[in-house]
């Protein structure tokens, strides 16, 4: 067995051990499994949030876009930064309400804020539907990375099935603690891989990033400013895309739910402050994509540009290391996606919709069963319906972004009503689906999800003003007006 294979298998094994033992000393009830007993301090929250934010897309998508599309890939640097800025303001009040009312998931929030079980069930269903392609994307990306990194010795299918088993095992055993712990391994490996390749590859081929850029400018001057190589992705597209993805980021059910694992709101605020720095290494991935554009023209699949260049530049064991890093980079977000999709189905669809009297133990048991069901569904999708990486993500984003008005207005505006949010959400989803599936994206130069979000917000506000607000829980955002009761 060669060094690359050893590194890949060793890493997956290490992830399994770390993940499965992470929850050993904790009594696993739903509160511990889903939100870590609300005890995560600054370090674990950072690991968790960074673990979720950096996906296989970082490796493959950012370099693939830099290669094929050019400047539009910059949007990836921007939207994360905007998302953390939004999170600085939105997550602390959200955490406070979660603590007070014992919320664990996003549908919990909608159901409690708007006093509507139906709205909660609807939000849960939309969330699961958006999570599935995102999860499939992680699995497909993983298979693809490992196959290339192992030089074809491990087939994509084998890698996907193996990683799926490991991920299921640690989610089942440890819940969110497993994901946070495995994230340590993932972050160290990923930063090392990106740092070495990002500086090393342009240096090896051109003698540095600056020289590489100058060569690129001489050869293809339009590649580095908007719209790059894709005329429909001009400045307006970038602006609307970063707005919808930046606002939509924490609307992903798993990112939203992770907020509740924090020990205090201060932990969340501090995390929001430092997280943008973690976006900066992505520019190194972009540089690798640009180098590939010059060195390896005509790649059939642009998403392979990062790995192809690593293979052309470094010994095979380093390619194995990058592959292993890519594998855990897919497994951590996949685990959290599976975890939240399962809880959404068990708690917010089954219990809320069909068995309001179900005990917490039975919901917990069902959640664990759902882990296997959801992961199997994503596995089938990844094995039999593989698709282009980034496009899927954008469609999922369009969907979850539509939660934003309901969340933001629910936290900050006392006039918003259940009917308003339901109408807005419905409008947003219908418009997004119509534009994306009808091939009207970009629409008038703007991202379809943004158009949908704008209409959603307008409908939410208009209908809220026209209807009466009644059983809504009165939410206070200032700490001093918080009632002094224990949960």
């Amino acid at each position, binding site marked *: 067995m060669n060094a690359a294979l050893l590194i890949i298998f060793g890493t997956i094994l290490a992830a399994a051990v770390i993940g499965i033992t992470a929850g050993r000393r904790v009594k696993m009830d739903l509160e511990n499994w889903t939100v870590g007993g609300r005890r995560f301090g600054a370090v674990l929250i950072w690991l968790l949030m960074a673990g979720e934010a950096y996906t296989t897309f970082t490796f493959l998508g950012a370099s693939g876009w830099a290669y094929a599309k050019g*400047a539009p890939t*910059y949007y990836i*640097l*921007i939207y994360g*930064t*905007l998302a*953390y*800025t*939004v999170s*600085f*303001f939105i997550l602390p009040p959200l955490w406070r309400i979660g603590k007070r009312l014992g919320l664990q998931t996003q549908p919990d929030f909608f159901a409690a804020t708007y006093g509507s079980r139906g709205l909660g069930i609807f939000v849960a269903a939309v969330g699961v539907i958006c999570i599935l392609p995102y999860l499939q994307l992680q699995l497909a990306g993983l298979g693809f990375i490992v196959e290339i990194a192992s030089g074809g010795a491990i087939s994509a299918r084998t890698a996907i099935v193996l990683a799926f088993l490991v991920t299921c095992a640690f989610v089942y055993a440890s819940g969110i603690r497993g994901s946070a712990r495995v994230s340590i391994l993932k972050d160290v490996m990923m930063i090392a891989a990106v740092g070495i390749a990002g500086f090393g590859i342009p240096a090896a081929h051109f003698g*540095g*990033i*600056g*020289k590489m*850029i*100058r060569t690129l*400018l001489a050869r293809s*001057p339009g590649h*580095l*400013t*908007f719209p790059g190589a894709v005329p429909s992705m001009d*400045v307006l597209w*970038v*602006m609307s895309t*970063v*707005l919808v993805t930046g606002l939509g980021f924490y609307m992903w059910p798993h990112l939203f739910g992770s907020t509740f694992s924090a*020990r*205090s*709101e*201060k932990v969340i*605020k*501090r995390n*929001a*402050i*430092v997280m*943008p*720095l973690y*976006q*900066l290494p992505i*520019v190194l991935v972009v540089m690798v994509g640009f180098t590939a554009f010059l060195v390896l023209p005509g790649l059939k699949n642009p998403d392979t540009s990062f790995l192809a260049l690593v293979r052309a530049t470094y010994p095979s064991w380093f390619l194995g290391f990058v592959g292993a890093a890519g594998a855990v980079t897919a497994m951590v977000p996949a685990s959290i996606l599976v975890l939240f999709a399962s809880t959404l189905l068990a708690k917010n669809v089954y219990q809320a919709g069909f068995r309001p009297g179900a005990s917490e133990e039975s919901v917990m048991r069902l959640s664990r069963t759902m882990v296997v069901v959801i992961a199997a569904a994503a596995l089938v999708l990844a094995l039999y319906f593989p698709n282009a990486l980034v496009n899927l993500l954008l469609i999922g984003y369009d969907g979850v972004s539509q939660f934003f008005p309901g969340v933001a207005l629910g936290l*900050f*505006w006392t006039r918003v009503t259940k009917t308003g949010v339901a109408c807005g959400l419905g409008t947003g989803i219908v418009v997004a689906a119509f534009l994306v599936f009808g091939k009207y994206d970009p629409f008038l130069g703007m991202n379809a999800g943004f158009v949908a979000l704008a209409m959603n917000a307008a409908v939410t506000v208009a209908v809220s003003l026209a209807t009466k607000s009644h059983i809504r829980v009165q939410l*206070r*955002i*200032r*700490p*001093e*007006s918080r009632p002094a009761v224990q949960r």
Partner: protein
Amino acid sequence: MNDLGKGTKRALLLGAVPFLMLVFALPFVNCVEPLVLGLPFVLFWILLWVALTPVVLFLAFKVEKKYNPPEDEEPR
């Protein structure tokens, strides 16, 4: 929005800065020249504001804390 504290309002103004610089300023910085640190200007601009956003948010944190009574840390 009436129950927003003064600190929160000022913090929100600071929070608008990354949006101004990273979204609404884009049409005006979409150029290659001048190269800064070897990077096209638009890319340099984006990286600059990504790196400055933590500073802006830290200021927002301070402003909020100054005007709003500090919330108690969760007892362990």
